């Protein structure tokens, strides 16, 4: 593996420009301006599905940043994604106003629990800017504090992975409880509007889709900048030979903590974009299985390449949405087979295979 020092070559920028044009112009036009009888029309369902997959792609980027480049495997990234989603969900719940089933100013589940007023930690949740702040701060702070103690104690490898898995599991149990004040096992749903726009309106959906696309591109460029900077080379050195790097006078703690926290924040924002498009957030997003699936996306695409995990997320989730319709009972078997197959025959993932094919025809 040779490390690259420039952001992108001509080809890379062209691909990126093409992708941006597709997301920002082509899809919105085909969805909104082309009538549904036309074969070129893209349905609202497809737009939502693609938006959802792009949220997952950001999560895959985030996990690649820490797993592929810093060698830290997190099996709890679903937690940061869900926390970002919950922070946005709180705002969306408040925006329902009195249109809920009980016509109360309180969210329905609180009426159901016979609560008379909002708990203190819901203060400010009716402001979008405050929700946006929480989306960044909650996953970021949790990751920072957790990471500080874990990295300071030099917890590494499989031990770190297990602790992150336990962390997301603990949070799932916490969020399942009605007393926690986040809707228990039903979570949040029945959202009506976001910053004044009705969520049922196709234009709002397309807007969210475009926002997600823009965020994905920005996240890709940010990650790319980081891994091509000297910081990225230090990260790779931490992954390959941490003690040697310490002899060179580096303290890995700050490097790990920075990239770990950034990764969590990216997941949080992805979660916040995911919730209004999917229309629901519940503790199921924090289940250990979800977080493991995230790692599978990165492995399938090819870790340590950024673009690979992004494609991995698209491939696995594309297959998932088709499979769960065509053969619903076999999806998990297929996912398991996919992981085993990739580990055995494609250790460098889809990107690795593409490179091999390219090298053969050269």
């Amino acid at each position, binding site marked *: *593996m040779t490390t690259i020092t420039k952001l992108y070559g001509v080809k890379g920028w062209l691909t990126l420009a093409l992708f941006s044009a597709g997301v920002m112009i082509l899809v919105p036009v085909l969805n909104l301006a082309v009538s549904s009888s036309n074969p070129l029309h893209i349905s609202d369902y497809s737009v939502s599905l693609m938006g959802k997959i792009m949220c997952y792609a950001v999560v895959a980027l985030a996990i690649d940043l820490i797993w592929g480049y810093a060698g830290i495997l997190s099996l709890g990234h679903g937690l940061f994604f869900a926390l970002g989603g919950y922070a946005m969900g709180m705002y969306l719940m408040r925006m329902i106003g009195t249109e809920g089933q009980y016509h109360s100013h309180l969210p329905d589940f609180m009426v159901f629990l016979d609560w008379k007023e909002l708990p203190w930690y819901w203060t400010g949740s009716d402001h979008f800017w405050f929700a946006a702040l929480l989306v960044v701060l909650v996953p970021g702070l949790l990751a920072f504090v957790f990471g500080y103690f874990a990295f300071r104690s030099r917890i590494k490898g499989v031990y770190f992975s297990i602790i992150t898995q336990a962390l997301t599991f603990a949070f799932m149990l916490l969020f399942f409880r009605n007393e926690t004040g986040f809707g228990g096992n039903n979570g949040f749903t029945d959202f009506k509007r976001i910053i004044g726009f009705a969520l049922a309106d196709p234009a709002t959906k397309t807007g969210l889709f475009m926002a997600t696309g823009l965020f994905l591109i920005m996240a890709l460029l940010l990650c790319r900048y980081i891994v091509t900077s000297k910081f990225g080379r230090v990260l*790779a*050195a931490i992954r*390959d*030979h941490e003690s*040697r*790097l310490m002899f*060179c006078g*580096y303290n890995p703690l700050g*490097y790990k903590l920075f990239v770990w926290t950034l990764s969590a924040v990216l997941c949080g924002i992805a979660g916040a974009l995911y919730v209004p498009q999917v229309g629901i957030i519940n503790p199921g997003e924090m289940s250990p299985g979800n977080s493991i699936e995230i790692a599978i996306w990165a492995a399938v695409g090819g870790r340590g390449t950024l673009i690979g995990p992004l494609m991995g997320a698209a491939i696995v989730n594309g297959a998932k949405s088709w499979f769960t319709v065509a053969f619903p009972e076999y999806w998990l078997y297929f996912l398991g087979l996919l992981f085993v197959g990739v580990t055995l025959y494609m250790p460098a993932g889809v990107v690795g295979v593409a490179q091999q094919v390219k090298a053969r025809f050269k």
Partner: protein
Amino acid sequence: MNTTTEDLQQGRDFSTASGGRILAPGEVDVSHGPILYLEGISVSFDGFKALNNLDLTIESGELRCIIGPNGAGKTTMMDVITGKTRPDSGTAFLGQTMDLTMLSEPEIAHLGVGRKFQKPSVFENHTVFENLELAMKTDKRVWRSLFARLSGEERSRIEETLALIKLSDKANMSAGLLAHGQKQWLEIGMLLMQEPKLLLLDEPVAGMTDFETERTAELLNELAGRHSIVVVEHDMDFVGSIARTVTVLHEGSVLAEGSMDQVQNDERVIEVYLGR
């Protein structure tokens, strides 16, 4: 203190250690000549005396070879200098002012004691150039690394070192693809990038071909005078080709010290080490 730059330039006599000049924090004071003093160092492991009242002085800019049979205490001595092992008794000073027995391993490394272990360890997935870049003495905190750009001066320093370790044509090659000897040179290069005051090399030519050994001797001869270097080595031909002064260790203390000829003709050395 009333000492002025003028006084210094005129070379007046100063009674204080640093010649009257105020030392920057962390600066190694070599104004009296020696960069390393070991005096009466003893270390024992479970009753076995690895070092027994060892005295050793290395002058600034000197290239010193340490030889001795297995178990003579060569590696333990390196461990004491780098802070890995604490001596039971004795004093160890870097320059006039730094008490090595009081400092931790990273602190000693930070002061400018660079150590190369026997087994080469370089970053195999990084290029040769990047290995040197990572090792270079610079601000190594997170934010600086995020926005770091190599200045022209830094780039030329890396290129100088590449030329010195004879890897200029391999600058963009992954370090993992280098031959064993080249990895050793790269590691010496990485140590040099850290601008060490004192360089400790533990068997630098172990496992090298004759040709590589020769090139390594050339390299060390080039470094002598510019850096203070201590080499621990078994290979007598190699020691002969670089050594100005040789110290022979035996059972944890200095048996003989002098030029290669003197040492080779010393009766006690012949008895314990060169063998008859």
